[in-house]
């Protein structure tokens, strides 16, 4: 599912694996994220999202396989990779009694060539007071600091692990504005999230991981519109439950009196054949939300 406007590959993994045993970690990940796109990485806790992100950041070594960011090997050339990446970790660090301004100065110092004005611009946009001690920050303010540090150097690639965690709706919008600005500058974004509405809102494509494996990748529109439909059917008499259960592609069948609801994956033809000879009073079909698609992979 390559996008037509793709200029070059921002992230590429080939058989990338970190195997913690018992199905934990990420296994045989083949993924390509194109430059300029916003890619959403979805999955429940423990599915392998953070492991993937930490592999891309060179924090952990792959068990096998490889990954690259703009052609740079994420392990062997991790310093060069980080020069062009802005990163928000999934679990925020603990800086104790440091003040926000000291953390920003220290990490900007490590990065080098970050103007104080750039930090100020992002902090002001997120309404973050850097004079306070880190331990006095709420979770949301800690997240804002992490975002400030990720955006302060105008990175070519943003790798964001649950970036809106702890942000109130107002500051979520401020974050989306930052994301739009970054994208307008040509930045690529790779973000993991549980908040499907935000993925629907900002992402071009999504990948869904389940039990350490990537199970699907595609443009948001394609995932939402083509593959599955929710149907609700009201029958004049008793629904032909047994026939319906045998229909290929019909999932999550629920029966209540004369009504049934189900998800149809793929073609409607087997369902229509099964309905032949039964009086249907109403038949409603709609495209499921991304949330419903996401959940369908985990039921």
């Amino acid at each position, binding site marked *: 599912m390559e996008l037509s406007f793709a200029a070059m590959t921002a992230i590429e993994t080939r058989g990338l694996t970190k195997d913690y045993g018992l199905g934990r970690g990420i296994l045989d990940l083949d993924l390509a994220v194109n430059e300029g796109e916003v890619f959403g990485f979805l999955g429940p806790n423990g599915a392998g999202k953070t492991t993937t992100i930490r592999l891309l950041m060179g924090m952990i*070594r792959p068990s096998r396989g490889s990954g690259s960011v703009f052609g740079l090997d994420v392990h062997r050339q991790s310093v060069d990779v980080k020069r062009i990446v802005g990163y928000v970790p999934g679990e925020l660090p603990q800086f104790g009694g440091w003040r926000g*301004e000291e953390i920003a100065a220290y990490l900007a110092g490590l990065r080098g060539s970050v103007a104080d004005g750039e930090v100020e611009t992002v902090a002001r946009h997120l309404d973050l007071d850097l004079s306070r001690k880190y331990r006095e920050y709420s979770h949301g303010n800690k997240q804002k600091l992490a975002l400030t540090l990720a955006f302060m150097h105008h990175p070519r690639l943003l790798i964001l692990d649950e970036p809106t965690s702890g942000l109130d709706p107002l500051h979520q919008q401020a974050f989306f504005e930052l994301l739009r600005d970054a994208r307008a500058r040509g930045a690529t974004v790779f973000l993991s999230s549980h908040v499907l509405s935000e993925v629907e809102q900002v992402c071009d494509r999504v990948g869904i991981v389940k039990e350490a494996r990537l199970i699907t990748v595609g443009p948001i529109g394609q995932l939402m519109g083509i593959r599955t439909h929710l149907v609700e059917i009201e029958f004049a008499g008793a629904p032909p439950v047994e026939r319906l259960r045998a229909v290929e592609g019909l999932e999550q069948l629920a029966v209540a009196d004369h009504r049934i609801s189900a998800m149809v994956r793929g073609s409607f033809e087997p369902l229509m054949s099964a309905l032949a000879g039964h009086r249907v009073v109403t038949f409603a079909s709609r495209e499921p939300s991304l949330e419903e698609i996401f959940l369908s992979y985990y039921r």
Partner: protein
Amino acid sequence: MTLLGLALRSHLGGFAATAFFGLLLGLAITLAFAQTAGNDPASRALFARQMEIVGRQLSYFLPLPAELDTMSGFVQWRLFGAAPLIYAFWALLAGSGAGRGDEERGLVEMWLAAGVSRFRYIVTRWAAFLLVATAAVAVLIAGTWAGSVAADEPIDIGPLALQGLALLALTAFCFAFTAVVAQLTTTRRSAGGAAGIGLMVLFLVNSASRSGGLEAVAPISPFWQYDRSTPLRSAGTLDGAAVGLLLGATAVLLVAATLAFRARDLGASLLRTAPRAGRRKMRPSGDPLLRLPVFALLDQQRYWILGWAIGLAALAAFLTTLTRLMVDSLFAIPTLRVFFERLGSSGYDSFVGIIWGSTAALLLSLFAIFQVNGWVSDDAEGRLEAALAQPIARTRVVLERLASIVLATLIIAAAAAAAVWVTAAIVDIPLTADRFFTGSALMVTVPLAFGAIGAVVSSWRPRAAVPLLTVIAIVGYFTEQFTPLFEWPPWVENTSLYALYGTPIATGVEWGGTLTLVAIGIAGAALGLVLFQRRDVGR
């Protein structure tokens, strides 16, 4: 799991380590006595004289020795003189953990949200420590008794139990003291630091009283009250009043800590500060040191380093002022004079060199161990990941850490050396300038070696780093102290990093040992680099 069960489990690591050390100490000291003291009265008398030499040297650290020709007397001095340091240190860690650590990790909030009252929560935490402390002391007593039985010179269990009661009272006091301090601070680190300084001062007050100083105020020290009990000596007994005072003070402190905990906000100090005024800031700090390699690490812990510099300088001045008193009393005994002359000490100046040099090297290595502990925490708490998210090589992280240890210990050693130099001039002890300053500067080779070993172990098995370095420090220190006494071969002594440093202030630099320390530093750094490149970062 019940609240008490969880509270007990939170002390599991500390209990296991303390009980292990206690058991080991109990067995080792009793068996070592049987092995080395001899069986006939003449051998015992000779052993007692030799150990008295060591004891007098260590009087700032251990009680004054007596009856060292008997198993009970030796155990009273050697084992129950040193055990309070181990148990007090554990109490300090446990008190700061119970008073602040749980709060930092959000556990207190979780329990209170689950409907547990503040009173029940905190009293359960206190009770859990008192239970595990009792068990840890019991392990020490059992180990000591078993060791004495194995050595065929059993100590009566009654006096041992009484001594255990005194040790438990002291441990409980240290815990309660730390618990109160924790209510006045906002972090575990500051609670541990402030309570540690307080307990150190109380310990030194007692140490000074052994040489005739500060006798008027010595009773305020819980360590002085603990020293009153000597039930293992022939005419000794448990000082009921002193132990009762310790237990009473513990109860008062715990009540105070409980009331303070109930009165204050979670995460806040009991001492309320005025609401913060001033303007909001959106720009990074203008502190230039924060942007410089190595100096950034020093800048982040400036108060910690300053505290060490002041503390070590104060200790250095204190030991130097005691020098004349100690040397005069030691050299009055002919056998001690011979021993010190064999060590190279012929007067006040070389005594300063030996005592101060070995103490400073020990404490600076302790500083290095704290630094390594900080590296492990950086990893576990995500700060290392935040740093490595910037475009810096892992090599730089390892080298900066070691460089910061060298620079920090240089600052601390310089402050302490200045204090020794000035105090020595005041008490009229002339020091040889070149030896003194060269020896003081070379002290950094000891923490460098500890840091390098720490770099290796923390890159390999982070959790093992601090325990391993602690064992290296303790074993190395006593190996250096005991080698001249028991005339062990040089290779045994050279396993100690402190022996490699030698006594440069008293007898001149031993370049072989010094270069070995530097070589350990370089080799450790190199191996640490390799391992750190290969390891996964994070929790």
